[in-house]
């Protein structure tokens, strides 16, 4: 009997959830408020960025859709932080929004075991603690073994433009008015968040000569290992600066901004501030950058990145009029802010399941995250876990040292968020090890064993890894002449001023050309040499920690003989009888001091055995 999964919402999270679950063999229904907006990018017409690009690669390692879609519909590709180290380089591409939607729709249509349906979910039916079905507004009931909620910004969505506001989940799309109530009835507590999106201008009305062109990479780098086609940059993006007068306009009309007039209760992200936020908070800066990003190759709309606002439309027009090059710009859509309901993610466990209910999962922006990539990653995890749980198998949980997915989920469910959560590399303790170039190395084995990758896809990854290993060995043996001394290539590569190109220049015998290496391979090799010392120390610590967590506690251990345990701790441990140190550390009420004492004792036992 195939598992019946219902995914609510066909945004970035919903799509990944539905595809992952159906790839695992479950029967999936993807229900959405509007079929035409499947895969719609609400805001920035781009995928990737620092830390986000990392997520996309991880999604690719699990066989997800977003990387394929990004490559297929990308019109401008850039590697950020190119001049910096491998760990912080990230891919980012601009996409044609229309093409992206079409790609997703076609992909979903072709997916086996997946049905698309348009409707609004009005209720979630449970029997005891278990999900059994959903109901829609038009009175239908659909049975389900598990439900994955991916409502995005649609739950209780309210859009604000200056003084006017109306119910909507996205510009001119109806909001979901039922789910919030349904969740509250199930005992879930909600928060109210906000985010915003800038205006769109008509391409033909912009004087492009006034702005600084930003060409893409040549050649463009794909996100997915499965992408076969050669990618092309088809547009150029442009950058500009706001003039002094714009600042004045914003400050003069601050009271008209929905954000500042107090009409919006929602908490917004610090790092994606509206233009009024920027001028109010950063009083020393009189000017800010913005970027003009076409939303498609033939599309007329241009996204103005950096001018997010909830000021009234006429003020927005005034702002445009003082920017050189945009005086005659025609606005196609005004900027707006949106408030929406989100759940407190601490109510989820690490598999993204709502605690206390069997079979209800939440993924994406409704968990308090922001960004397409963050949503997609969660969707994938939720989709996989919904199926695994029904099969009685262990959930897929990515740890913090295994991927940014792990960092994000752990941050969300363990600490919760007060504002929309966005990934930054600084959130990752293991940043040096979590890179774009090694995402597959880190995660594809997990993916393959779950059945998310085909044998041939896995084999390809394996071939690549072996190629890299061979080159690493070669680097270790190879010597080059550096300023009069013979040094090992691997050692030399460690220096900040030496990179692959420099090394190639010194490679008289052409050893470095023996293997077919692409940019990702080169980044991998550079990283292994440059970060070696730091990574080694991190790995040691990690290994110690893992070893410790795995340590078995003898079944009949009399805790009274463990030195350093208080009477109370002895009592607790005796009652609960943890089997491993990991279990002991997860027990409620066990103090760090007690854990320390237990650890020391176990290490002593370990030593005695040897």
């Amino acid at each position: 009997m195939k598992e019946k999964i219902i995914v609510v919402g066909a945004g970035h999270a919903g799509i990944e959830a539905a595809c992952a679950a159906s790839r695992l063999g479950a029967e999936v229904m993807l229900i959405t408020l509007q079929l035409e907006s499947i895969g719609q990018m609400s805001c920035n017409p781009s995928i990737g960025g620092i830390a986000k690009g990392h997520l996309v690669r991880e999604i690719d390692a699990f066989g997800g859709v977003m990387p394929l879609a990004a490559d297929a519909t990308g019109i401008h590709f850039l590697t950020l932080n190119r001049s910096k180290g491998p760990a912080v380089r990230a891919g980012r591409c601009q996409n044609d929004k229309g093409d992206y939607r079409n790609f997703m729709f076609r992909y979903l249509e072709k997916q086996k075991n997946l049905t698309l349906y348009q409707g609004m979910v009005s209720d979630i039916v449970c029997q005891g603690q278990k999900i059994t079905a959903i109901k829609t507004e038009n009175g239908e009931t659909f049975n389900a073994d598990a439900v994955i909620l991916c409502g995005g910004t649609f739950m209780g969505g309210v859009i604000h433009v200056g003084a006017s506001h109306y119910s909507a989940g996205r510009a001119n799309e109806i909001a979901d008015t039922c789910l919030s109530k349904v969740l509250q009835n199930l005992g879930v507590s909600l928060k109210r968040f906000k985010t915003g999106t800038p205006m769109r201008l008509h391409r033909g009305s912009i004087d492009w000569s006034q702005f600084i062109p930003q060409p893409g990479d040549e050649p463009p780098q794909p996100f997915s290992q499965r992408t076969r086609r050669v990618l092309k940059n088809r547009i150029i993006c442009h950058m500009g600066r706001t003039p002094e007068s714009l600042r004045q306009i914003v400050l003069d009309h601050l009271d008209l901004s929905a954000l500042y007039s107090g009409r919006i209760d929602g908490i917004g992200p610090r790092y994606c501030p509206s233009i009024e936020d920027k001028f109010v908070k950063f009083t020393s800066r009189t000017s800010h950058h913005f970027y003009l990003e076409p939303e498609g190759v033939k599309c007329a709309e241009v996204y103005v990145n950096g001018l997010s606002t909830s000021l009234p439309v006429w003020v927005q027009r005034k702002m445009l009029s003082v920017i050189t090059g945009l005086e005659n710009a025609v606005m196609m859509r005004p900027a707006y802010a949106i408030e929406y309901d989100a759940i407190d993610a601490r109510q989820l466990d690490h598999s993204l399941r709502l605690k206390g209910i069997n079979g209800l999962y939440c993924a994406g922006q409704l968990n308090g995250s922001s960004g397409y990539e963050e949503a997609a990653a969660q969707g994938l995890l939720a989709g996989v876990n919904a199926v695994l749980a029904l099969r009685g198998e262990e959930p897929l949980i990515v740890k913090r040292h295994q991927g940014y997915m792990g960092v994000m989920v752990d941050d969300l469910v363990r600490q919760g968020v007060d504002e929309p959560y966005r990934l930054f590399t600084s959130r990752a303790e293991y940043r040096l090890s979590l890179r774009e170039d090694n995402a597959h190395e880190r995660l594809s084995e997990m993916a393959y064993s779950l059945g998310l990758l085909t044998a041939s896809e896995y084999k390809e990854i394996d071939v690549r890894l072996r190629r890299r290993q061979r080159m690493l060995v070669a680097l270790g043996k190879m010597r080059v002449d550096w300023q009069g001394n013979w040094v090992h290539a691997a050692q030399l590569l460690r220096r900040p001023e030496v990179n692959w190109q420099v090394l190639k220049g010194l490679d008289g015998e052409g050893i470095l050309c023996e293997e077919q290496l692409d940019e990702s391979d080169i980044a991998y090799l550079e990283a292994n040499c440059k970060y070696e010392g730091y990574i080694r120390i991190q790995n040691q610590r990690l290994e110690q920690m893992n070893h410790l967590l795995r340590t078995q506690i003898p079944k009949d251990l009399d805790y009274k003989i463990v030195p350093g345990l208080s009477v109370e701790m002895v009592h607790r441990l005796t009652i609960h009888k943890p089997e491993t140190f990991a279990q002991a550390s997860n027990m409620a009420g066990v103090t760090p001091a007690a854990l320390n004492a237990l650890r020391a004792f176990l290490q002593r036992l370990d030593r005695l055995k040897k």
Partner: protein
Amino acid sequence: MNEETIAALATPPGQSGVAVVRISGERTQAILKHLVRQVPRKWQARRFYYRELVDINELIDKGLVVFFPGPASYTGEDMAEFHVHGNPFLVQTLLTAIIREERVRMARPGEFSFRAYMNGKMDLMSAEALSQLISAGSDTAYRLSLNAMSGGVAQLAGDLRSALLDLSAWVETSIEFAEDQHLEIESQLGFLETAQKKIELLLGKSAFYDRLGQGVRIIIAGPANVGKSSLFNALLGDDRAIVSEYPGTTRDILKERFYLHHVAVELLDTAGINPHSSDQIEREGVERGLAALKDASALLFVVDVSQKPQGWEFDFLSRFQSGPKVLLLNKSDLNVGDDSHSWKQIPQELQGISLSVKSGQGLQEVRAVLEKWSQQFKPSTEDLMISLRQRELLELISQGLKRISDGLKNGEMMELIAEEYRSINDHLSALTGAVTSDDVLQRIFSSFCIGK
């Protein structure tokens, strides 16, 4: 856990004939090499060598050194012991020199025994006894919060934390938001230098030593020619006092200082000052005098009872609020006329002792006061540990900052510099309270304007 070499005072703190400092770990031999002048060609195990101990080239003491190669030692690791004069200040200097080495730190309470146990040198029964030490030590000895430091140190540490947060934020911003920020390395190097200076201030500051108790300073002050030096010498001549004349140990040593038990007694000249004088220089003299007394824990104010009080003395005394104070009316042996009555008008709360250094009258009382104060200011092992631990953390932070400075100058990759900052933030957490990645993010967002 066993990677770092540990050091500790093995004998009780305070004044004694001999103090034993012991070290255990893989850096033992390196420490011996750096600290001992005229290192023997080959250290013979368990043999006492009489050698000079130096900190770089400054002499700390001459004493006995013994080396125990592991596993034939108490802990099972390489160990060494330094048997030196039981002067707390000297011990402090020795320990400081030891922990300045890389991968060396102060031992936690009972840690030597703990290692002995871990290396199979001790059985469970003995371990039970030491478990008391371990658990007792853990809460209190690691109270390295701002409250545990003296006011000035806490302030500087707080500033340091703030500066380092800014620096961390800068590096993280340059990683996350490459395009938006125009980041100059020069200004960052400038900030780093400032942070380094703050640390040097903290490390050099005698305020550190205040917490140790050894640095508890009793000042003998008073106008010129009242007999301060004579009193000083008289107390010095007492065979319970120990002279601290160690040439060139640190820059802080004052020539006129001696130790009574673990308390330092210093001589301070506040010559010829008169606050009511219209002479600005004289008024400044008073302020300077008070400033010098700021770090004092107690005051022995000496006056010549045969001379009329000039008027400023009581005011001066009342302004000293850092601790207990006693007025010593010296030269009581001289025949005094009516002038002495003015001295008898001392305020109620101020204790006065009639003294004649020349004849010896009152000296006993003075010694009793000093004795009482030295009991009052007795340091605990805890205080000693906390201060040294604080110092150690600051050294680690300083080393890390130097690596960052060098890294920035050599074009080292930002993410590696960020790793160094992370270690520094860990140390800072131990020193001032937790620094989370969210703190850094907060700083990023408050000081930098983020675009995309």
